[in-house]
């Protein structure tokens, strides 16, 4: 029985990281994903901030799921999310003003990030706290991985650096387009293409092996 619940928890956790990845599968939260991912550091900071807000709000929503009347639930979620966003906003401002300026308005805009509201509405309001947190943590980490995949590529091509460390020496030719908004679309499109190709290949493989068993 315990094994079963552990397996289920693990499944909840992995859902956000791979099967329902917010960036690459659900294509949610595109506004921060395209706007702030010009460098790996920005992407990670944005991802962690979102994860923090996601986990905390999902916990609170899950705890209050039987107290909140159905009619005002969205307003309640927004108030909860906004509270934690304010917390994150002040924390980042206190820790690193540089990062705070780089992320700009996108920290405050976590309030309207559709991943958080979507998780609160679709998952946390229907599940007990532990399951809700596990799922939220998986989603948050999945989102961070997605942002990092975008930010890493864009930083390497757009500035020749990775986490601020120069990779190719001083003579590197930056690809200007990569730090501009179109670069975000190009990189996101390339990743989506890669995952679609992998998925198709896996399905073809599964179908082929299924046929093999049948015969």
């Amino acid at each position, binding site marked *: 029985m315990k094994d079963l619940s552990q397996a289920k928890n693990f499944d909840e956790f992995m859902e956000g990281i791979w099967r329902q990845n917010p960036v690459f599968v659900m294509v949610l939260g595109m506004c921060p994903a395209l706007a702030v991912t010009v460098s790996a550091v920005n992407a990670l900071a944005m991802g962690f901030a979102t994860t923090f807000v996601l986990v905390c709000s999902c916990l609170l929503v899950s705890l209050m799921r039987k107290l909140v009347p159905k009619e005002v639930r969205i307003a309640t979620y927004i108030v909860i999310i906004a509270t934690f966003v304010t917390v994150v906003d002040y924390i980042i401002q206190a820790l690193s003003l540089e990062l705070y300026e780089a992320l700009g308005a996108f920290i405050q805009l976590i309030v309207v990030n559709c991943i958080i509201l979507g998780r609160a509405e679709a998952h946390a309001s229907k599940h007990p706290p532990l399951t809700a947190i596990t799922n939220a943590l998986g989603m948050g980490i999945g989102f961070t991985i997605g942002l990092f995949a975008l930010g890493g590529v864009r930083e390497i091509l757009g500035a*020749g650096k990775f986490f601020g460390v120069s990779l*190719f*020496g001083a*003579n*590197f*030719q930056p*690809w*200007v*387009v*990569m730090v*501009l908004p*179109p670069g975000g679309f190009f990189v996101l499109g390339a990743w989506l293409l890669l995952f679609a190709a992998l998925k198709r290949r896996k399905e073809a493989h599964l179908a082929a092996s299924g046929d093999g068993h049948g015969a």
Partner: protein
Amino acid sequence: MSALTEIRSAPHIKSPRSVEQIMRNVVFSLLPVCAFFVYQYGLSAAASILVVTAACLLTERLFVRLGGQAGDLSDYSATITGVLLGLTLPPGFPLWMGFVAGFTAIALGKALFGGIGFNVFNPALVGRAFVQAAFPAAIATYTPSFLPGRFTEFIPSSLAWPLMAPADTAAWLKGMQLDAWTGATPLAKWKFEGTLTDAGDLLTSLAGHMAVGPSPALILLCGAYLALRRFMDWRIPAAILGSAGLTAWLIYAIGGPKYPDPFFMLFSGGLILGAVYMATDMATSPVTPRGMWVYGGLIGVLTVMIRYYGGLPEGVMYAILIANAATPLIEQITQPTPFGKGASIRAGRSASYTLHPDYISREEAAAKTSKKRFFKNKPKKP
């Protein structure tokens, strides 16, 4: 192999034309232009065209192999893309950037849409637009043509290591001791320095060390060959050059001498190459004759507007890409009227037709009229 009998409805047109044949002829007509380009800029130009074309062919092969893309290397379409892209890039463009341009042209401009015939935008221009956005400094760096040692040494910026910035050509040029050369294309000179180049010099590209592409006169000649053999529709280049010339002339006539004369507008930059070879791409231009005029007119006006009022000196590329995007719309509003369906020969309410040979072609309209008469004679309700 047994002969297949194919049953088809009319019209029974037997055309010897195939896509491959048309494409091959376009490539052949581009060879003199390439030769002139190499004559102007030497080794670097030859290497640039070869690398870009090789990148296009490799990418095409890759995507055909991966599946999901129509066409094949043997249809010459990737070769055209590569050669045209090579001709639009500066001769000293770093070769690795040329490779990136060729890859993007085929991957982003063609393969993603499904291969030959499915592309929405001209692939060569998609590749060029990408490197224009990615490497704005390198793509604006021109070197003068007809340098003395051009057949024995590369332009130093060509041979940059992959991912590395190209060498500075200014110092290299200073060592050449050229007199009266200012390191900008004629369009950039006009836009940023206010000096005009003679239109006749531009037409031949032969006068001195000008930083220009292949001679517009030669491109027009090759285009005329294609148009005469019906491998290309003459309406599109005619419409583009006509509307660009007319717009430039109007602005020149109204705005006075601070604007360049229309001939400078026509023969400078890539307008002729764009009009003859890029805009006439069959997959991305309208098929209706009236649509071709609208499409060409749009490109001409946009080009002049971007050149005059935009931030960049050259606007042909963006004008053609915008017109490519508008092509489906243009085709929709310029559908030709089928014979007998036009508004001009719709039967009037009380029209009466005598039995006359002219009338026979109006059979359908007359049928409508008689129906109306039938209704007219119906007894009215009280």
